[in-house]
Structures are given as C-alpha cells and as structure tokens.
C-alpha cells in the first residue's frame, strides 16, 4: 500500500460524553482501503462509541471526521450509509417480524411505481446472501424464526448489499458457529482484495491474529497504540489494553475432584423437544463441569432445562441423591435445590437496567433480608456492601441505574445477585461474552474460589481457553446429546475441536468417547 496516499477515512480529536462518563477523549483513527483494521480494547474503552459515531448512530461532541480528505458529519445512520459506510453491530439491527429480504433492503428497496418491487428485492436479497456465504437462508423467512447465528449472517448480507466502501464489524462473529466464522473470514478477505476498508472489533485474539493487517488499541477513550498485526505479542497487547502488568490470564488449573463422593446434581436421560436427547451427567460438589461443542448444539437449552424454564422436559433429576422436579426459577432458587443461573443476555435477562444497582443486587435474595414480606433496609445495605466489595463492583453509587455501569461491572452485579442466595449449584451461560479482559480474570478467580468452597458449577463457554483452564471435566455436545467427555489433562484445544466436529462413523452410537 502506498504510504503517502490519503487514508480513506480519518477521525481526529473526537470526544463524546454520556453524562459524567467520558466515552471518548480526543480519539483518533486512520483507516485505509484494502486493509483489515482490528480495534481492540476493554469494555468502556470507547470502541463501540467510536463505531457508533462513524456509523451515524450517535453524534460526537467535538472533533472531526474526514472521508477521502473531505470533512463529513453524519446526522443519522442513513446519511452514513449513503456515504458508503456499512456497519454490522453487536446488537442486531434486524426487524424480527419482517422477512430476510425486507430486512436486507430495509432502507433502500428497489421500487416500481413508488411501491416496493418484491420480485426484484427478492432476487437482490439472494445475491447479497450469496455474497455473504449464506445461500442456505430463504429470503422469505421471518427473522423471528431464525436462530441467532443465521440472523448474524443476514446482518452481514445486509451490510454487503449496500456496496459499502467501509465495512465495520462490531463483535459480529460472537454468535456464529465455527464454520460460519470461517466463511465470514473468507468473505472479508475477498472484500479486502476488492479494495474495501474493513474495521473489525472483537475480543477474540485468535480471530484477530488470523485476520487483521493493522491493529489499534483503545484504552480509556483514547487511541494508545497502532501497529502492524503480528508485531506485538498477546501479552504486550493485553497490557496495552488494561494498562497494568499481569502475569497469568487464568488461575492455576483445578485439582481433580475425587469421584467417590455423592454427586450434588445428577441427571439421567434428559430430553426436550428435538434439541436435547438423552443427556446424562453428574456433578460433584466443588467440581467445574464445562459444556463444549459447536454453537447451538443444545448447551444453552440444557442449562435452561435444569433451571426449570423449559416445558415438557423428560428425564430424571436428582439433587443430593433425591429425585426432584424443578418447576421454574423460583423452585430452582429454593434452598432445597439451591441453583443459580447466570443467563445468556445480561441486559434483558439478568438485570432490570433502569433500576438501581441496589435493587438489582438484592432482588433474588430479598427473602434473606426481609421478614414476612417487609424488607429490612439495614440488613439489605449490609449484604449489598459485602457483595460489592467481594466482587469489586465499580459503580458511582448503589442508587445509580445499573444500566450506567460498564458491561463487565453489569455482569458482576448479575453474579453478585446470585451469590447472595448462597447457591450450591451455579449454572453459567457463556458469562464472559463481550466482557473485557480484566473482568474476565476476576471472574475466573471467583469461579475457582467458589469451586474450592464446595459449589458445583456447570459452565457453558464458547471460548476453548476457558474450558481448558477452568474445568475439571468438559462434556462436548452435538445435536443435543453428549458425544464425548474430556477430563483433566485430556482437555485440549485439539480434543475439543475433534470431539465437536466428530460425526464420523459413530454418529449412530450414543456411547460417549472418554479421553484422558
């Protein structure tokens, strides 16, 4: 690339404040065509805000943007779109009750006599889907009926349909299956060759290593470093991101738990709809059991089934050896069972965002701080203070709305909320998705401490490193059943991938393969 050429897009001195929080301070960025530019940084570092400003979703307080040397401002997403900027967001921008084709061309459909030309729209949608590597998606399907991974592919197709010059992906692969991710990477590389500028935000270091040409690190709202990909080690990068020394990402690997104790949780032949088939597992006190496998193989459904959220679940459940039926979260929470679930989406399932930190924290454990339905404010305050210091939750005050906290702190509130009911079994549904490195480390340490104090943990994660380093055992699921079980040293990257993809000659058999 010609180093003297004007960058395709430049930002200079951009600042943005939300109330008292500085999301961006004097941020700068320079983007060139034909290169994949990765943006890294902790949550709260300003990446998402930066992207939203480029995409016209929010307005900067100060600073300027230049497109091909000319200054531009975007008062709305459609203006940015017309300028050739397309964005695939972390929160999907798809309308659930419209079809795939309607969504792809939602803002600028082909028209005839002033009305939308459905036939032409459908043809163009099929072309866009093909360009995104997602031809298996029917253009007339309703978004509501598609699983999350398909929806994200539609998002990408939608961005490509506008023939952008700059394509921005903000955590766009977080819900994709491995094969989808590979397809998307191929598409991105092809686009790079066509001369597009690509901005890629992700927390996944492996992806960035495979994809990026240039990397920029953001910290506390500023651009702290820009370098060619591969010229810095992972350690150095993470240090840039969190700005402090650290040695290990993970606490020491767990010691194996003796298998002769009575299991705290035991399920036999659990089935549900066509998503879970004859799943059996047992968890001891102090054991961390991971759920692995490709995305969407029933891991989330298993956790929901255990928690009593699914209807029509068949199969036996035993807590401490006694047969139990869990009718819903309320009975799962009860001391008899003592189960907690850290849900998939903290914003809609884990927290009441407009309510205060205090109200959110104490909500699951209100029975502990009240008598006959009347809340004891003093006891509540004490318990909350305890939890906030235990988990080092950073908030301006306990009366601040929990929606104003950063993603990592929000997740800590969710976990603290559940720790208040002193659970014996904790289910975690991909708890570190979209969380910054610093908070992740704290969570790993916390899980270790909880396991050591005797809590049984079932941990679903899409991150292989987490499964390898945090779990005693990992059950790999495929199509709703357990196809293999890995233990201790046998939990490796290779073993996880191999099991996850293992369809082979044993597809018919139900016997799990155990690797040690």
């Amino acid at each position, binding site marked *: 690339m010609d180093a003297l050429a004007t960058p395709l897009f430049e930002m200079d001195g951009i600042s943005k404040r939300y109330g008292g929080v500085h999301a961006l301070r004097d941020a700068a960025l320079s983007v060139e065509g034909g290169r994949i530019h990765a943006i890294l940084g902790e949550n709260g570092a300003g990446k998402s805000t930066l992207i939203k400003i480029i995409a016209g*979703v*929010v*307005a900067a307080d100060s600073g300027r943007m230049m497109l091909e040397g000319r200054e531009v401002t975007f008062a709305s997403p459609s203006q940015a779109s017309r300028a050739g900027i397309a964005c695939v967001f972390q929160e999907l921008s798809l309308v659930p009750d419209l079809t795939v084709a309607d969504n792809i061309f939602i803002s600028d459909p082909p028209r005839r006599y002033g009305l939308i030309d459905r036939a032409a729209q459908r043809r163009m949608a099929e072309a866009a889907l093909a360009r995104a590597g997602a031809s298996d998606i029917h253009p007339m399907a309703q978004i509501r009926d598609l699983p999350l991974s398909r929806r994200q592919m539609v998002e990408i197709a939608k961005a490509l349909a506008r023939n952008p010059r700059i394509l921005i992906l903000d955590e766009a692969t977080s819900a994709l299956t491995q094969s989808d991710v590979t397809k998307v990477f191929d598409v991105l590389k092809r686009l790079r060759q066509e001369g597009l500028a690509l901005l890629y935000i992700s927390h996944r270091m492996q992806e960035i290593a495979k994809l990026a040409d240039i990397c920029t690190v953001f910290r506390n709202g500023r651009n702290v470093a820009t370098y060619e990909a591969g010229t810095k080690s992972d350690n150095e990068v993470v240090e840039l991101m969190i700005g402090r020394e650290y040695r290990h990402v993970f606490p020491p690997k767990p010691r194996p738990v003796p298998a002769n104790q009575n299991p705290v949780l035991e399920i036999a032949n659990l089935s549900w709809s066509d998503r879970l088939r004859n799943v059996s597992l047992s968890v001891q006190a102090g054991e961390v059991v991971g759920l692995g496998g490709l995305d969407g193989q029933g891991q989330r459904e298993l956790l929901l089934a255990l*928690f009593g*959220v699914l209807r029509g679940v068949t199969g036996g459940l035993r807590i401490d050896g006694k047969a139990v039926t869990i009718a*819903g*979260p*309320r009975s*799962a*929470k009860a001391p008899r069972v003592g189960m907690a*679930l850290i*849900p998939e989406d903290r914003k*809609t*399932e*884990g*927290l*009441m*965002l*407009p*309510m205060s930190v205090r*109200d959110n924290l104490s*909500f*699951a454990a*209100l*029975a502990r701080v*009240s008598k006959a*339905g*009347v*809340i004891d*404010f003093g006891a509540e305050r004490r318990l909350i*203070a305890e939890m*906030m*210091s235990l988990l080092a*939750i*950073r*908030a*301006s*005050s*306990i*009366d601040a709305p929990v929606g104003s906290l950063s993603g990592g702190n929000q997740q800590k509130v969710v976990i603290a*909320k559940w720790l208040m*009911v002193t659970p014996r079994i904790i289910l975690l549904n991909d708890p570190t998705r979209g969380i910054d490195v610093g908070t992740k480390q704290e969570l790993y340490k916390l899980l270790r401490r909880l396991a050591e104090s005797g809590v049984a943990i079932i941990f679903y994660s899409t991150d292989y490193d987490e499964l390898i380093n945090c779990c005693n055992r990992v059950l790999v699921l495929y199509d709703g059943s357990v196809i293999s079980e890995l233990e201790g040293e046998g939990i490796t990257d290779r073993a996880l991938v191999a099991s996850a993809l293992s369809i082979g000659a044993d597809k018919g058999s139900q016997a799990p393969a155990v690797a040690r």
Partner: protein
Amino acid sequence: METNEAQPAARPLIFLARWFDPSVAIAFGCIIVLLFLGSLYSPSFLSPEYLLQQLKVASFLGVIATGMMLVILLGQIDLSVPWVVALGGMMSSAIVGWGPVGHALAIPFGISCGIAIGLLNGIGVAYLRIPSMIITLAMNAVVQGLMVVHTGGFSPQDSASAAMRFLATGFIVPNLPNAVLVWALIGALTIFALNRTTFGRAIYAIGNSERAAYLSGAPTQRVVMATFAISGGLSAFAGVLLAGYASKAAQAMGDPYLLPAIAAVVLGGTSILGGRGTYLGTVAGVILITLLQSILSVMQIAEAGRQIIYGVVIIAMMLLYGRERLRR
C-alpha cells in the same frame, strides 16, 4: 476513578434525588397554579370548606387511581374500572336488602366482587398471557352484561347501607370528610407496600423487565394476579363509597372515572410503560384532575368547552414533563 460508595457528603443529595421526581414537583406546581387561577375567579375558591370538599371528591378518584397505578407500574392497564366500580356499588346496595346480615356484609361483599373480577383479569394476564388491554376490556363488557341483567335495564332501586353512607359522607375527625381519611389510609398502605415490601419491589421489577424478574426467581405470576385483584377490589370499593355518597348506585356510575384515573396516574409521573413512578405523584395527579374539573364546572363552561379544555390541559402538562428522552 469511580468509587464503590458515594462520598459521605453526597449521600443526602442522592437520597433527595431518589425521592425528588421532577414530574411530581411540576404536578404540585400546576396544582398551585390552578388554585391561584381559581381564586382569581372567585375568592371562596381558597376557602377550607371548598378545598375539603374538593379533597372529598378527589378521594373517590384517588381510590380508583391507586389500583390503576399499581397495574400501570406493572406495565399493564385496567380498562375494567367503569363496570367494576358499578359492580361494587350495585352489589353492595343489593345485599343491603337482605336484612341485618346484609347490612353488615354490604361493604365487604362489594369489595369481594371487585376482587373476584380482578382475579379473573389477573389470571388472564399472568397465566394465559392475554394482553391486559384486551382482557380487561372483555371483562368490562361481561360485567356490564351482568349488571344489565341484574337491574333489568332499569336504574337500581336498592339503597346504600348506613355504614356506606357514613364512610362516604360522615366525619370521624371533625371537619375532615371520612372519604379523605379512607383515601389517606389506603395511600399510606400503598406507599408502605411499594417501598418496603418484597411485593412492591417485585412490581417495579416486573414493570422494568418481567423476563429478568422471572429468571431471578420472583413469583411474577402471583404478583401480577394479586395486583389486578387489588385493583379490582379498590375500584369496587370506590363504587361502594360512591353509592354511599349518593345513597344508591346508578347505571354506568363508573364510566366517568376510567380516563381521569389513567390521566391522573400518568400526570403524576408514572410511566405508562411500567417500572417507574411514585405514589406521591399519583396523589398530585388526582388532585390536579379534580381541581381542573371543578374549576371548569364552577366557571360554568358548557360541557363542550370543558371537554376541549380538559384535553388541551392534559396535553400541555404532558408536554411540560411527560416527554420521552431524545434518542441521540
């Protein structure tokens, strides 16, 4: 760097911020403005007798608005108010005709009828997941049908009991109408329930995110059902009071109360989407609406003019402080 807890000096300010809802302040401000305007028209407007009379009239609306507020806090709405009010008035008067037992049971019976309808509403919303707007609407039609059959289409002839009349028009405390005391008592219980009980917390939580409340193990279905039952009971109780006030029930006696109840709750700062609002605001909203209606009738403005002014004033006040935040 952010701190874990607010600095000691900032705590009282934050405490105030929790209680100081700007919309409540504006509502009370508007009340003062209305009182001032009224006093310009006629000096007796500010006399204690007149103001107490206004409070008494406001009490009936206040009781209904209390139930409505609880339901709106959940993010739902109760459109069965008109005929549940009538149900309460008519049923309590009807049972008075059953002798001394009837006299004693009149008030509880009237309220129980309302609670029963409220329970049905609650079951529909909480367990059958029917949108509250439509099920309470259907319930309203059913209760209307029942009352038409009960009265044979004519005006009800039963009289209210002495107890009902005493509650509505008597004076336990000299010069302070009983109806106001009743409203105050209900209000105190409501404030306590909303702020200090697990039930109240659950209502706010469900209004903010029923999904998150459910996943946190809250008994969401029971709370919703109970809230609708309370709303039904309060509406019926208001009907009992109204029947006591007029010494008998009347056809469609609840119709004039639905829209003012909703308006009062919303003008008091409670969000129609649920999860946000204080009872103090509802009190302000009720007084505001009552004063507005009084002033308009005192000025002898024809019904047409009153309706127009009523609508314009509500919109004006909402434009002042009921607006949603700008997205960007």
